[in-house]
């Protein structure tokens, strides 16, 4: 029964290449008079303040469009109240949008019957919460096996899969403990194991590491990164911490007041902010791990060096980051060559490296 259901849902999942999650013109307005408020907002007749006063409504998400590719880690970054947690809850329809379209694996989530929606949630989407959301009266193993229990898997299967998931998050042997006996970091590992237990395609991470202390946070970020890449999960990762977004995300969406201000790779967001708000945010971020050799190099055609000179230069790949270049420049005073597939494609001089280190917008 369970297996049949599984293939049923799996068969309809979109083919590779297409985005796995698509949101089109999604609006979420909280309040009894949301339809009127939406009409006013769409007509551009009212601001956030007016909506609150006239209709007693709060805007959670405002006209959001985004698509997340299969295997991508997509970070949504914003301060509290920016609507990022509200946004992510639309993907598995924990919240109903006021307007808009949401596709997961090519299927319209809004069109699903309650049973289909539950099946989607238990098979295809795992979710991790800021405050863990674990059941305190259950053991770690029973918590991890919750999605399988909801899928009505046999006890033995639950047991095996839970153990497997616990091993992945380095909690092997803790299955018989109760959740309250564990530290915060360990509890969030349990949360992660629970999200992985049903082997879903998509992980929704709602500020998973915000409640943890910095050292544990770092450690869990690293573990999570290697785990999700190894398992090929598609991740929507919510955070209020730009450093975290930059470390983890393949792409970052910056949110404010329910709107997405900019979407791009960490390098794009940091080096080419399109909005004053984003500019203020990225001003203080370290570029050492963000700027790539490709973006800093001068294409080789514009230099007039001999082949022999070029061959003598230290070389890097285009995806090496500023930090690597600084290390090389520390022991070598000349230019650095950028090689791609054996051929030299560009050169980087010391000025470019020092400019990159300066914490301001690279022009």
């Amino acid at each position, binding site marked *: 029964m369970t297996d049949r259901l599984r293939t049923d849902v799996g068969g309809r999942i979109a083919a590779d290449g297409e985005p796995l999650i698509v949101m089109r013109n999604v609006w979420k307005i909280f309040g009894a008079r949301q339809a009127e408020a939406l009409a006013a907002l769409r007509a551009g007749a009212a601001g956030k303040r007016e909506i609150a006063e006239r209709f007693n409504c709060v805007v959670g998400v405002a006209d959001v469009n985004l698509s997340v590719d299969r295997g991508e880690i997509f970070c949504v970054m914003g301060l509290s109240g920016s609507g990022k947690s509200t946004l992510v809850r639309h993907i598995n329809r*924990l919240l109903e949008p006021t307007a808009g379209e949401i596709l997961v694996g090519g299927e319209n989530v809004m069109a699903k019957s309650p049973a289909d929606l539950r099946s989607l949630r238990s098979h295809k989407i*795992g979710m991790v919460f800021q405050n863990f*959301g674990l*059941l305190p*009266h259950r053991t770690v193993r029973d918590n991890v096996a919750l999605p399988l*229990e*909801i899928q009505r898997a046999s006890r033995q299967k639950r047991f095996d899969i839970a153990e497997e998931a616990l091993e992945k998050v380095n909690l092997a042997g803790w299955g018989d403990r109760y959740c309250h006996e564990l530290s915060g970091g360990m509890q969030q590992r349990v949360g992660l194991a629970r999200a992985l237990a049903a082997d879903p395609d998509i992980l929704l991470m709602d500020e998973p590491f915000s409640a943890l202390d910095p050292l544990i946070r770092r450690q869990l970020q690293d573990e999570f990164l290697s785990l999700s890449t190894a398992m090929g999960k598609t991740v929507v990762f919510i955070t209020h911490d730009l450093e975290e977004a930059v470390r983890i995300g393949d792409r970052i969406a910056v949110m404010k007041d329910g709107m997405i201000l900019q979407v791009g790779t960490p390098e794009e967001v940091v080096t080419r902010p399109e909005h004053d708000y984003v500019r203020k945010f990225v001003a203080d971020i370290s570029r050492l791990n963000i700027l790539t050799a490709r973006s800093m190099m001068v294409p080789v055609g514009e230099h007039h060096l001999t082949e022999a000179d070029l061959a003598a230069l230290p070389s890097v790949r285009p995806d090496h980051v500023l930090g690597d270049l600084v290390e090389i420049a520390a022991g070598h005073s000349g230019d650095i060559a950028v090689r791609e597939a054996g051929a030299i494609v560009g050169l980087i001089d010391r000025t470019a490296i020092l400019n990159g280190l300066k914490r301001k917008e690279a022009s």
Partner: protein
Amino acid sequence: MSEISSEDGLVREFTKQGADYYASVFARIRSHAGFTWSFNWAAAVLGPIWATARNIPILFWLALFFETLAVAQLATGFAGNLGGEQRVRAERLFKQADERRVEAEKAKTAGESSADSMLRSADGLKVAAENAARQAEAAEARGPMLIGAGLLTLLIGKLLVGVLANPLLERRFNRWRSNRRLRHGFHKAGALLAAAFCLLAYGLVAWRVAAQAPPSWLTTAPVNREWQGIVAATLDRALDGLSKSGDAVFSAITGLINIVLDTAASGLTTMPWLVTMAMIVILAWQLAGNRVAIFTAAALAYLAVLGFWEKSLETVALLGTSAVLCLIIGIPLGIWCGRRPAVYTAIRPILDFMQTMPAFVYLIPVIALFGIGKPPGVIATLVFGTPPVVRLTALGVQGVPTSIREAAEAYGATRWFLLTRVDLPLAAPSIMAGVNQTILMCLSMVVIASLIGAKGLGEDVLNALQYAAVGQGLLAGLAILLCAMIIDRIVQSTSLR
């Protein structure tokens, strides 16, 4: 600088009238750490009227209290019938003494033997009359004193109101700053209403204390015995109608309860007492451990040796039936209330009614509908015992963190799964407390239920009450207490695990 002027603007917007005065007073209050002494003349003079206009209820009541007291004292002092009663009595006594003396003189001249004693009683009457006259004088002398006291009360009241007015208004201002919907400014309509009320109240109070013979409508509230009779008779008829038309339903309920009760009672009583007791002790040991098992054995021995065994079993059967019914009704109702605040709002007054209405009041209609005996006893117990489990279940279900429910929902949990695997386990401690409360409530109701023929241990207590048999009553009461403790300890221990 701009901050100060905006602050000033706020005070202006809040006070509307007398803004300059309040701006400086509030600034002074803000700059002091402790209480700031100031005197608001308007508040002192106008008292309750000012307090109403400025929306400070506490000051209204303070001012009203002192002013009413002062009005009563002043009115009594100026125009009150001070010592009036004593004076009348003194006059009557003087007259009686004079008459007695005349009679005594007559008897003496006639040579009767009673003359001496009559003379003595006339003297006694005179002394009493003089006493009364003295008391009347003393009471009259209290007049100026009362006037003084009234003036003093008025002064104290005015001083208090004047001193408290500004700090209280400043506090109201601070509350208004964070909630602009609060009423502010000088509320003229309110002031007029308050003035009218004060005038009327003070006038009536003064009249009541000053008048020699106040009219009866001033001293007693209007009673209409006829209406009371009509309404009560209507209720009687309604109940009669209900008991006639719903006879089939009520006798069906009675029959059902009887079947359950009989099964429970016969199950308990047909078993040899030794077996039953052993079973209870074993149960206590398994669920609650050694100490409770020993206590249970001792309590059972008491019940058996002092002759309460059969009655205890009857009581327990009654209690068990009632409690189980309470839980069957109460827990689902509590869950519903916990999930739907609107339902809880609707049901709460009914629960209040069930808990506060004296049992004797609803025993009467219960008898009318269900007759006497055990089933109405169970129903009366049901009325009393259900509210706690409903309340505590609702409380427990409300207390389930939304984050945990959301997590379960995010993994596709059905509503049944949420209820049975999330809500109920997390609410279990609260629900168990409710179960415990309900059981104890039911047991306390058992005594009262015996009034309508529910038998059991309550019957013994009732008999002891009727014949004033103190010892018997105490023994039976102790038996009920022991039953309650056994059940409570066993149930509580399971809730703790």
